[in-house]
C-alpha cells in the first residue's frame, strides 16, 4: 500500500529521498510494485518517471539505453540486437510493455526478469545517479538498499559478437518460468565453429537471474555440440525448486533444453541481426 507519494524534481533528489524515507521504493512503470500482491506492504513511493533518461541509442558498437525507456520503446527501437528485442517482447502483454521500464526490470531483479539475462551476457554496465557505474553482476551482488538508482544501461555489441535469448513460459503472456541468454564470438577451429568468450545467463533457477560460469566452461573454445549433448551435459548443473509451475525434475530438463535451443540459435549467423520491423 502506498502510504506516501513523492514526486522529486530531479534524479538526485529522488536518490536523497530513497536514502532518507522509511519504506522508500522507487516507482517507475509500476507494473510490479503496484500489483495487488503488494497491497499490504507499506510503501513510500518515489516517482521517478520522467526523471531518468529514456533514450535508446546506438553509437557504433556501443548501445546506451536510458533506464526510463519502456519495454515497448525497446522493442521498437532500431539497431538493437535481435536477442534484446526478443527479451523485451518476452513481456508479451502490450499494456504492460507500455509501462514497464528497463530500470524497473533491473531494480526488481526478479528471478525471471526479462532483460537481466541479456544484460548479464552483454556484460552491461549500469550508470547510477550520483554514484559510480557498476557491472550488471556487481549491481546484483550489492544489497538492494545500496544499489541506488540505475540511470542507464550501456553495453558493447560488436559485429563479431552474437547474442541469443529465449524463454519458457506456459502461455504467451505468462511470466517466464525460465529465461536464458547467451553471447559469444565464433571462429573457425577444427573444421567447425568454436565459441569464444561464451557467456550464459539464466533466470528461474535461483532468486535472481545469474551467469553460469560452469556452463560457459563446458562449451568454451570448442564447436558447440548438438542439442542432445548440451542437454545431457547441462542438466546436472541445474538445481531448480518445485513449485506450481513445474516440478524440479521438469524444470531441470526444460532448462537444459532451453539452453540447447539458445546455443543452437547462437550458432546461427542470423542471431546477430538487428531487425527494424516493429512487433
Amino acid at each position: 500500500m502506498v502510504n506516501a507519494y513523492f514526486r522529486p524534481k530531479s534524479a538526485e533528489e529522488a536518490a536523497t529521498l530513497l536514502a532518507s524515507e522509511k519504506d522508500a521504493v522507487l516507482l517507475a512503470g509500476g507494473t510490479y510494485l503496484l500489483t495487488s500482491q503488494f497491497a499490504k506492504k507499506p510503501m513510500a513511493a518515489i516517482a521517478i518517471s520522467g526523471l531518468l533518461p529514456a533514450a535508446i541509442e546506438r553509437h557504433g558498437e556501443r548501445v546506451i539505453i536510458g533506464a526510463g525507456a519502456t519495454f515497448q520503446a525497446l522493442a521498437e527501437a532500431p539497431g538493437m540486437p535481435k536477442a534484446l528485442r526478443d527479451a523485451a517482447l518476452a513481456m508479451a502483454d502490450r499494456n504492460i510493455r507500455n509501462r514497464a521500464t528497463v530500470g524497473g526490470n533491473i531494480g526488481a531483479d526478479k528471478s525471471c526478469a526479462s532483460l537481466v539475462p541479456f544484460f548479464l551476457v552483454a556484460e552491461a554496465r549500469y550508470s547510477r545517479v550520483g554514484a559510480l557505474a557498476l557491472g550488471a553482476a556487481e549491481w546484483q551482488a550489492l544489497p538492494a538498499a545500496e544499489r541506488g538508482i540505475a540511470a542507464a544501461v550501456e553495453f558493447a555489441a560488436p559485429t563479431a559478437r552474437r547474442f541469443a535469448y529465449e524463454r519458457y513460459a506456459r502461455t504467451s503472456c505468462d511470466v517466464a518460468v525460465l529465461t536464458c541468454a547467451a553471447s559469444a564470438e565464433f571462429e573457425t577451429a577444427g573444421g567447425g565453429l568454436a565459441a569464444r568468450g561464451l557467456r550464459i545467463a539464466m533466470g528461474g533457477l535461483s532468486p535472481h537471474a545469474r551467469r553460469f560460469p560452469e556452463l560457459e566452461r563446458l562449451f568454451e573454445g570448442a564447436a558447440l555440440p548438438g542439442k542432445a549433448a548440451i542437454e545431457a551435459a547441462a542438466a546436472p548443473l541445474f538445481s531448480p525448486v518445485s513449485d506450481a509451475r513445474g516440478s524440479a525434475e521438469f524444470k531441470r530438463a526444460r532448462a537444459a533444453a532451453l539452453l540447447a535451443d539458445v546455443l543452437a540459435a547462437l550458432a546461427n549467423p542470423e542471431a546477430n541481426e538487428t531487425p527494424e520491423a516493429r512487433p
Partner: protein
Amino acid sequence: MNVAFTLNGRRAAYECSADDRLKTVLRRAGILSLRNGCDGEGSCGLCAVLLDGKLVNSCLVLAAEAEGREVVTIDHYNADPALRTIQRALIDAACVQCGYCTPAVALSIRELLARSPEPTAAEVADALSGTLCRCTGYEQYFEAVRIAAARLADPAYAAPKGPEFRPDLRHVGKDRDKVDAETLVRGEAAYVEDRLAPGTCWLKVLPSPHAHAWIKSIDVAAAEAMPGVVAVLTHENCPDKVYTTAGQGYPEPSPYDQRMLSRKVRHVGDRVAAVLAETPEIAEAALSAIKVEYEVLEPVLSIAQAKAPGAPVIHSGAVSYVAGSPPAGTSVEGDGRDDPIVYQFPLHSDPHRNLAASATAGIGDVEAGFAAADLVVERTYKMNRVQCTPMEPHSVLAKIEAGRLVLHASTQVPWHVRRIVARAVGIAENKVRVIKERVGGGFGAKQDIVVEDLAGYLAWKTRRPVFFRYTREEEFVASRTRHAMEITVKLGARRDGALTAILMRLDADTGPYGQHCLTVPMNAISKSLPLMLCENARFEVKSYYTNLSPAGAYQGYGAPKGSFALQTALAEMAEALGMDQLDFLEKNRVRSGSRIDILKSLGEGREGAAVTLGRCGLGDMIARGRQAFAWEGGAGAHGQSAAHGQPAAEAALPESAPPLSADWKLGRGAVIIQQGSGLPGLDAANAELRLLADGTLLMLSGGADLGTGLDTLTAKLAAEVLGLDPEDVTVISGDTDSTPFDKGAYASSGTYFSGGAALRAAEDLRAKVIATAAALLGEKPEDLRIEPRGRVVGLRGEISLAKLGHLSVQGEGHGELVGFGTFKTDHAAFPFGAHFVQAAVNERTGEVKILRYHAYQDCGTPINPALARGQVYGAALKAIGHSLYEEMLYDERGRCLNPRFLDYKIPTIAEVPPDFRVELMPVEDEVGPYGAKSVSEISVNGAAPAIAIAIHDAVGAWVREWPFTPERVLRAMGKLS
C-alpha cells in the same frame, strides 16, 4: 492530495489518496467503462485507458502519476467517428458477447489503427495481447479489425456477409445486431456494479484458512464495535437452515447440505463470518478484528482419500429424505454437532462415507460383450479442476424497496435465486424480486446462488442496501469449478472394429458441498455414451465429498470429461486394432435412424426411454473434416495418420503459423461430440409478447441472457412471426416481477426452451392479431396473412399492426393484444459436432501448439449465425485452455496455489490457433424454434480428446490427464521419471 489532468479532452481535478489508482479515481468520477477482472493485478486489461496516447492498465497507475497528463477512456471516443466505426465493426463481426471486456477491446483497436491503419494479424494479436476475454475465443476480433480498417479507409466499404440459412425467412438464419451490443460496446451502465447508489454498504467474508475444521469459538465484539460496521454475521446468529446453492429445478437433485454460515468449515475459503460495513475498507478492518479459534481436522484432498476406509467424514450431520428412503446399509444418524443433510429424494448416497451421490445402470450384458471381444482395452483418464473465470466475478446488490427484498444479480437463474434466497432468508417468494442485470460471463458458475443468500439476508435484516462482489481469489476458491474426475473406460471390440461392450466407471470430486453432485457426473455419461452404438453398455458413477474448492456447473456440465475419456479410449482401441481412428468412429457411431437404447438408462431425473434418432448430420461433418484435413492417404502401421510424427519444418502449415524447428512433430486428431437442448420433461420456459400502441412489440422473456445473444434471438423470433424487424422489438428479460417464469440459462436450454417460449408467444399474438384484424376487415381469419413490415393483409383490405396497436388501447377498441407462450417438451434434441485438430508437439520439451482447429457444428437452424459461431469459437478456445494450460493446484493443506490470472493461465489472443474455423452444418430439429437446437455448450466437448489424439499421433504417447502440460507430455513420452 489533489491531482489534475486532462480527462477526455477536459481539464479535471480530483482529490485522491496516495494509494488511489487511476482506475479508482476514474470510476469514482463516473467512468463506468473501466471494468475489473483481476483486482489490480494488471493481468486482465479491462481497465485500459490511453495515457498520453499509450494503452495502459489504469489499475497499475497511481492516480498521482496522471498529474498533468492526458487520459482518454472509451467514453471520450463515443463521439469520435473513428471509434464509432470500430464499435460498429465489433458489432458487425459479432464480437460483443457478455460485453465486459468490449470497451477495452474497442480502445485497444482504436489505438492500433491510429498507428497502423492496415494491421497484420500479428499486430492485431499484439494490440489485444493485454486483454482477457473468456467468451469470444478472440477469432472474430480479427474480422472486426479488418472491417474497421477497411471502413476507415473507405466509409462506403461493405463487409462481406457471412453464411446465411433458411432463405424462406427474413431474419432467422441471418446476422442481425445483438440487441444489447450498442450499450455494451459503448461501456454504458449495464452490470450490477453500475447500480450502486450512495449509502450502499459493502459485504465482505472472512475466509477459512483451513480446509477442514470446527470453529471452537468466534469473538466478533471488536469488529461490531468499529464505527461504520453495520452487522457481523456468524454461524451463531445466521438462519438455522440448510439448503443447496444449486440453481436447479425444484425439487433439486442436490442435497441440502449447506448452511449460510456453519460451525464447521469444509474448504479453504469457506465462510467463517460476514461483515457488512459502510465502506469496503471498514469491512476489511472489521474482518481482521474477528478472533477465531479452530479445531483443525484432517482434510480430504482427493477422491482416493475420500473413499478410503476410515477417511475423515466431511458431513457428519443427520441425514433425512423428503421423499423415499436411505439406501440400505447407509448411516443417517448425525453426530449432534454438524448441520443436517436433507435429500429431496434418494441419490444413492452415503454421506457419512463421503459419498454424496451415485448411480449405476446400463443395457445388455457387458461381461458377455467383453467375452465376445477379440480385444479389450481398459484405460483411466484424469481431469483436474478448472475454473469458469467469468471476467465479471459473482456480484449482487440487495436492497429493500416497499418492504420487499430486491436483488440486482449477475445470475443465470433468476427464479431459482428467488426461491433459494426466500428459503434462506425465511420469507415468502412474493417478498423477493430478482432482476438479472447484464452478466459479465457466467459459464455455469452463475447457475449457483453463491453470493445472493448472504447479501439478501443482510439487506433484509439491516434494511440497508448491500453490495457483495467476489474478489478474483474468492472466485477461484469459493465460487464453482469444474468437477475433478477420474474415469475408467473399458472397451471390447472385434477385429473388424465393431464394439462389443463399453463400461465407464466414473469417480467425481464434488468438493465440500453437493451442488450438482450427481447431475454433472451423469452428464459425463449421458453426453458421451449415446454417441456410440453398442448393445452392451454400462456405467457406474460415484460422487465424493472432499475438502477442496466447491465444484458445480461449468459449460458442458460434465460432458467434456466424459467425451475426453470415451473418445480418447476409442482412439486407443483403434490403435490397438490397427485402424484409423476416424474409420473406427465411423463404424460405431450413431447415424440417422439409429435407435439409442442406452438412453433408457439415462433419464435425467425421471424414467428414461430409448430414442430413435431422426436425421443425424455426423456423417456430413466428418466428411467435411476429412476433406479439410486431407485425412485420406492411408493409415500408418498402427493406425496413425500418414503424417504421423512428420517434422513441422517439412510440412505446409497454416499461413500465420509460427516458424517451427525440426523438434516439432505434427499430429492430428478428430472426435465426435454431442450435447442436449435443455431438459425435456423437466424444465419449462415462458414468454409474453405485447403489441404496443404504435405497432412495435415488447417481449417479456423469462430467459437469462448471459451474453450469449438470447435476447437477440427472442427479438428475432418475434419479428419473424409478426413481420417486423428486430429493432421493432424491445426485450425485457430475467426479471422475476415483470417477466414470466423461466428455468434459467443452463443445460443448453436458451435457444430451445426460452426461444421456444418466445416463438409460441409470438405465434399466439399473431393468432390474436389475425382474429382481431379479421373482425375489423370483415374477412375470414384464414384469408389474412402478415406481411413486412407489420401489415395484416386480407383478400380485400389490410390493416397495420400500428393501427391494431392503437385500437388496442382505445376505449372503443378490442383490448390489449398480448401473446403468451409456454415451452415444455418431451422431445430430446441433440446437437452433434465433429472437431478436428492439427497439433505440433515439441518432442524435446513436451510443448504443444494447436495449429489448426476446425469445429463442424450442427446446431439446427442457426438463428443468428455469426453469434452462433462466436459461441463455438469461445467454447472451443476455453476447452483448449482446459486441455493445455488450466489447472487449479492445491498444497497439502488444501490451499489453492494459483487463484489469480498471473498463475492460472487462461488463453489470450496469442493462443488462438492460426487456422481456427467454425462451420455450421445444420440439421433442423422438428420441435425447436424454426428447427434450432443448442449451440454453445457442446463445443467445449471436443478439444481435450482431439488434442490428446493429436499428441499421440505426433509423438506416440497417450497423455491421459488434463491439462496436457509439457511436463505431463514428457512423462507420457517416458522422458521424465
